[in-house]
């Protein structure tokens, strides 16, 4: 513990803006006294610890631009988190979040948000989630979304959207309005068709990423995937496809069943060694 205290002391004396507290077995931030008084800190990394909660005093670190809490045991976030007006990068990947606090979407400058590998679904998002119009990247891989809110079209600066390995049965057509989108990850879902509006986007260039395998695509789409992504985009832009898609939606087919390959997710298992 004295090692943690020394890091805080050093940062205080030398006005260090970057603090790395990753992989130190921290279970509770009380173990790092004085941390929340380091107002000058701009980058704080606390990945690979055992934090179950983030205390409200995190809001005191008003100069934080990057906060990395990847791979902890976090179930609860304080509402004060979104009061960090300078925060641009927030990594909450690989935690145990099944909901987000009220008002979570009120970050003023957040550009990159990573919520991969949690237990989130469309019902976990607070109503102001899509107010974060500064977001450039949103990672939600390995969560439990079955549908995705049409409000995604409010996030007009979105460049990367990752929804890999969720339970999505459809993709909202509004994704086709994200004209700055460079990467779309939708592999490992229950998608059978793509909205024709996705054809508005250019996702097949050298600086783009379009990953869509491991979905139960209808046969005509699957055939195009065999030929390559550019064929898929050519196809969904065609009038033939628009017609087929309309008929498919109209028929209201039953969604494909859930796969259970995520059943063993670490964030779902109860914590046996949870202290205090």
């Amino acid at each position: 513990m004295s090692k943690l205290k020394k890091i805080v002391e050093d940062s205080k004396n030398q006005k260090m803006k970057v603090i790395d507290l990753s992989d130190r077995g921290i279970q509770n931030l009380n173990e790092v006294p004085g941390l929340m008084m380091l107002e000058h800190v701009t980058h704080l990394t606390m990945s690979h610890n055992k934090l179950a909660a983030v205390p409200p005093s995190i809001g005191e670190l008003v100069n934080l631009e990057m906060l990395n809490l990847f791979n902890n045991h976090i179930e609860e976030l304080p509402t004060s988190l979104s009061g960090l007006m300078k925060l641009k990068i927030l990594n909450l990947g690989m935690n145990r979040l099944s909901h987000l606090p009220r008002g979570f979407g009120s970050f003023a400058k957040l550009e990159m948000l990573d919520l991969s590998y949690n237990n989130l679904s469309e019902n976990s998002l607070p109503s102001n989630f899509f107010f974060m119009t500064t977001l450039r990247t949103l990672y939600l891989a390995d969560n439990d979304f079955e549908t995705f809110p049409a409000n995604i079209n409010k996030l007009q600066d979105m460049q990367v959207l990752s929804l890999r390995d969720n339970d999505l049965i459809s993709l909202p057509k509004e994704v086709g309005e994200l004209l700055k989108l460079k990467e779309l990850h939708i592999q490992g879902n229950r998608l059978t068709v793509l909205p024709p509006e996705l054809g508005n986007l250019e996702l097949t260039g050298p600086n783009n990423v379009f990953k869509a395998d491991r979905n139960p695509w209808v046969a005509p789409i699957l055939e195009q995937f065999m030929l390559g992504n550019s064929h898929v985009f050519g196809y969904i832009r065609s009038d033939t496809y628009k017609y087929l898609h309309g008929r498919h939606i109209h028929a209201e087919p039953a969604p494909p069943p859930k796969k259970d390959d995520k059943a063993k997710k670490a964030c779902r298992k109860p914590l046996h060694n949870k202290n205090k």
Partner: protein
Amino acid sequence: VSMTSQLSQASCIRCRGGFSSDEHMVNSNGEIYHEDCFVCAQCFQKFPEGLFYEFEGVKYCEHDFHMLFAPCCGKCEEFIIGRVIKAMNNNWHPECFTCKLCNTPLADVGFVKNAGRSLCRPCHNREKALGLGKYVCNKCHSIIEEEPLRFKGDPYHPFHFNCDNCGKELTAEARELRGELYCLPCHDKQGIPICGACRRPIEERVVSAMGKHWHVEHFVCAQCEKPFLGQKHYEKNGHAYCELHYNQLFGDVCYHCNGVIDGDVVSALNKSWCVKHFQCTCCNTKLTLKNKFVEYDMKPVCRKCYEKFPLELKKRLKKAAESEKK
């Protein structure tokens, strides 16, 4: 007006009747009246305070005289006593006959008819100049046929001024500087920077960039034309751009900081990074392309972090990578 004692043979000039001994008579300039006959020819009332007006031998009280004979002012509609200005088919008090544009009294300076209006000469000239698309000199009030010289915002004939430094008569090329006028060579000798955009001297804050000087509000992005106002700008081919437009037009933008990459570019995972921003997304350790890193949703992850991933996830990711290759 006076009253006299009786005069037996006298008779009233109005009713021709005589006067009894105890009757008052009124004498007005030698004409004698009964008191009751010395009245206004219009309203038959005595003259207030004995004051009357005479026109063609008939006497009227002030009110009726004005009603019948005095001219009315075309502006204030009051009677005009004293000097009447006859102009524009109407009568005016001298102080009421003014320029329709600037209200200068015109009685003594004369006027010009302009589109049914009476105008002073300067206003008339200005109106005429406007009609011709020209300016009127603020000093001599005549039309400026050539290029005007602007001084404190107003147009002038340049020849009314001399250079404050060398005394030469000025041309339209002259420049105003701190309230004085200078010919162009004398102006330039004073070392005042000239704005690279509007070519006018910069007297307030100077922005120096791209080998030129600029008014703060004239140093703008070549694409969106918004002034930088002290914000960072990016130069390319002799033009300045805001960050956004530089990026859109030429930039390698860093995935991490979203800024234009200064110096070397790390290209990996279909993205670009500043050298210092290419780091493990899980622990923020700096990476280089020589380090072994793992791709995780097209983000770089160092080996140490990847080892810590749940076994279940590593298995799925491995399987997914295999299915992707097929």
